[in-house]
């Protein structure tokens, strides 16, 4: 599967890694719902490391879309909520 790390580009990850990511993703979603900044930061940090270490970075000129997208490392819960709540917030 292809995952985009916002601000870092696209990575190709194995199904196995996606499975590991999905577990963390549940915690990430729950943290956003609760507004728990600390839990959010921890889950996101772990996920980003997983993708960077196990994923294979795609070349910059690759034109395909991503299956999954992760927020940037320094994003806040509030920022992610804003992105999810209103697609008009994504520029470009």
């Amino acid at each position, binding site marked *: 599967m292809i*995952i*985009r790390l*916002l*601000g870092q*580009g696209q990575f190709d990850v194995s199904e196995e890694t996606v499975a590991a*990511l*999905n577990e963390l*993703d*549940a915690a*990430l*979603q729950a943290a*956003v719902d609760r507004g728990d900044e600390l839990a959010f930061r921890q889950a996101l940090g772990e*996920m980003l490391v997983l993708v960077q270490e196990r994923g294979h970075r795609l*070349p*910059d*000129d*690759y*034109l*395909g*879309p*991503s*299956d*999954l*997208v*992760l*927020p*940037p490392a320094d994003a806040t819960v509030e920022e*992610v909520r804003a*992105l*999810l709540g209103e*697609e008009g917030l*994504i*520029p*470009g």
Partner: protein
Amino acid sequence: MAGLMKRMSLIFRAKANKVLDRAEDPRETLDYSYTKQLELLQKVRRGVADVTTSRKRLELQAQQLQQQVEKLDNQARAALAQGREDLAREALTRKSALQNQIADLQAQHANLQAEEEKLTLAAQRLQAKVDAFRLKKETIKATYTAAEAQTRIGEAFSGISEEMGDVGLAIQRAEDKTQAMQARASAIDELLASGALEDVTGTTKDDIQAELDRMASTNQVELELARMKNELSAGKPTPALGAGSGGEAGSASPAASETEGSV
């Protein structure tokens, strides 16, 4: 309900589909999007330039504050030498506040440098995709009918659209950080220009310096008085003291240091 990663990707996808659905002939969408891509490239490059400007402003301010710190340090020493511990304490208190400001500026500086780097890399990634898109666009326009083009375009378009969304966000975040920082930078500029600090041109005098100068000139006056008294009592003029020794006199009773052995 889908997890966060999926939901975020769908939001980017929806954005692309919205543009595609609007087009009568999908091949027109290609040209329209390409124009938008070039605009965004310009914008991200401007973004890098803006962040660079802000970073340089911070560097300049940190330098100016550092100069003030050194000056206050010297003033504290001078005040202590004059036996004015209260004045020395005031100078050191201000120095400490400024050092906190400098530490804060250094943190901001690191922050901006990181943004600068992110945007520079984002511009590179976008440029690579825009170049690839241009080739693909020309191929599609030359090879396919409008109906056939529809499917060919979808993939390439949602890929570049996602990248544009990503870069757009990066620009926005950098702008937000820069703006927040500029407000603080202005506050520091005001501080530098206010009475609390001497501005870099050295035209205004701060109160600590004024007090030190006043004490120095008082000493100078005392020395002159002592010299004149000596002249009167000896009935002959003595050579005048060298000018510009103000501020260096450490003794509080200058008359004592001016004893001339009368024959």
